[in-house]
């Protein structure tokens, strides 16, 4: 694996000057993933913050071939590109020794929700590509609406904390498990605060033959009502509370990449974010307990699967 020094020396494939917000988790994720490829990359991005913020015509932050076509179809679009590559290789229009990597980026809305069918289809067909979901927990680009990835209890613009309903009442969908159920060779969860772990995972994901998947937590100061300078800290605490577990499933075997010595209470993470403000009120203690219980159960489940073929 490349050291941080080596990574820093590589050409920047995702340039600065884009219009993503200060403190946005997406740029460090994208830069790290692109630098882990060690080969030419062609990428696509679903409609969302990453796409809108990086390619306002006539500017582009992408120093690699890149295409955006729509919101729900990043996995289908990359399927087409990767298939064209195989067709060209077969027909001798691309040299046999040239090895291109294919990456689709999508937000949680474009991946957990509207893009799930296209993702499932592409995984099942076995295209050789990496899908990276940056999970900021809502449809941020359109103004913080709830998604299937929004945490329980969070206030969004379509699940506001009202007088009767205190934020989102449903638990988060476990997309990584859904992906794993497709028996892909590699799937993992990562976080931008742990660059070494994330870049190792990206390297592995881009090396396998077949589809691979990275689900990466991506702090969003605007939607989380958190401080931009605390984004990386917020990602770290999400991992230390076990809200966001760092694990990977390689050829079916589950490995937990990080186990906090002392699991922090979920309230440590919630209190950094205005979207959970109501959950910390005394009258909402039962909701907080429910969230903690859910996290504990999920963490226990993961521990019980450690080292097993799942």
């Amino acid at each position, binding site marked *: 694996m490349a050291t941080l020094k080596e990574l820093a020396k590589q050409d920047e494939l995702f340039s600065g000057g884009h219009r993503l917000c200060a403190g946005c988790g997406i740029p460090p994720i994208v830069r790290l993933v692109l630098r882990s490829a060690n080969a030419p990359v062609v990428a696509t991005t679903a409609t969302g913050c990453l796409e809108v913020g990086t390619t306002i015509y*006539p500017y582009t932050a992408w120093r690699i071939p890149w295409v*955006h*076509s729509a919101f729900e179809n990043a996995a289908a679009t990359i399927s087409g590109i990767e*298939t*064209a590559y195989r*067709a060209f290789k*077969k027909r001798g229009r691309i040299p046999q020794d040239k090895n291109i990597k294919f990456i689709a980026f999508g937000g949680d809305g474009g991946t957990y929700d509207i893009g799930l069918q296209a993702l499932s289809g592409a995984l099942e067909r076995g295209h050789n590509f990496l899908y990276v979901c940056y999970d900021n927990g809502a449809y941020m680009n359109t103004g913080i609406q709830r998604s299937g990835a929004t945490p329980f209890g969070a206030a969004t613009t379509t699940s506001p904390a009202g007088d009767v309903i205190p934020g989102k009442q449903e638990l988060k969908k476990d997309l990584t498990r859904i992906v794993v159920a497709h028996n892909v060779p590699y799937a993992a969860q990562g976080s931008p605060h742990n660059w070494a772990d994330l870049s190792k995972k990206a390297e592995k994901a881009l090396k396998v033959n077949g589809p691979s998947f990275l689900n990466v937590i991506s702090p969003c100061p605007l939607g989380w009502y958190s401080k931009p300078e605390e984004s990386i800290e917020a990602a770290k605490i999400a991992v230390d509370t076990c809200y966001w577990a760092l694990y990977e499933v390689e050829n079916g075997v589950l490995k937990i990449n990080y186990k906090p010595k002392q699991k922090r209470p979920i309230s440590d993470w919630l209190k950094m974010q205005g979207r959970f403000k109501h959950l910390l009120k005394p009258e909402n203690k039962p909701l907080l307990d429910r969230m903690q219980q859910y996290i504990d159960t999920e963490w226990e489940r993961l521990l019980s699967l450690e080292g097993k073929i799942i």
Partner: protein
Amino acid sequence: MTTPAIKGQAGLTGNSAIAYGMKQINPDVCAAYPITPSTGIVEEFSGYVADGAVDTEFITVESEHSAMSACIGASAAGARVMTATSSQGLAYMWEMLYIASGMRLPIVLTDVNRALSAPINIHCDHSDSMGARDAGWIQLYSETVQEAYDNLLQAVRIAEHKDVMLPVMVCLDGFITSHAIENITLINDADVKEFIGEYQAAHPLLDTDNPVTYGAMTLPDTYMEFKHQQSKAIARSKDVVSEIGKEFGKKFGREYGLMEKYKLDDADAAIVILNSAAGTTKVAVDELRKAGKKVGILKPRLFRPLPYREIADALRNVKSVAVLDRVDSMNGFGGPLFNETRSALYELEKRPKVISRIFGLGGRDYKVKDAVQVFDELLKIADTGKVESLTKYIMNKES
């Protein structure tokens, strides 16, 4: 499955002829999803792939939305790309149709025309392709299996022409043309290969040494320039369609223009109609001509871009016109073909009377007697100058 050896003359269904044309074209990538009545195309093409008769990479996508998305990805990557669908499938692609044309990707799609739900109906009408008429795709309509096959081969050239660079939709009637066997003349493989040539995209994504950004976001200061360029490109395609139709005629003996005029030159009354129903109408014209009635047909082949000047010119000396639409635009002013034909005629100083008739929805029969009835009505209008009913459904229900 074994690949049938077809040479020269062959009795083929519309679907088989399209699949065979696709085999001869041997595109780099095909992404498709089954739907009646176009399923046969996808199945037969899968057979060609399985037998190694083509070396196309075939993506068995999980939906038509993904079919068009994968076509877009593959086309932007630099590949020659084809697909086929019908009805709900085309409707499901709708969002992506605009993106294919907006990104100027020369994808070729065969639409086997079928009615749109609800109520669900698998039979022919034109609500699918007419629903996509403003999606920025070039649309070619086909009366017969032969025309569908010939249009498909020409579509590749039209789409990839450097002055065009737009997707093309080849339309043929569900069941009536897709499932009926017709004796057609096939072009041999080598001639097809030579006619379509190689495709080299100008800015393929797979050229990683020269990275490009496709599908950037535009604001009000640039969006309109993109649309203006696109609009000019589709307008330019009209001449390209004519040129390639002529070249095809020279090489293979079947020349194609923007439209077919059937006994129209001296006609007093004319029916304007698309696809297979033009064939039925021709029989009515022949009968009426025998009885000395001056009737004729205008059958547009190219509907997008609409050759409005040529349409007006073709109908200049006719006294009355009925435009028959196999689709209703639901409380617009008649069907789309009527609407646009009538609008095209407005430029003439002396205009014929024009009426709208909706026929054949969801596979309802359209018979020679229906055409005769319309002509009778038109001849009366030609005589009296009076129109009794401007818009009407031809229900044609005997039982």
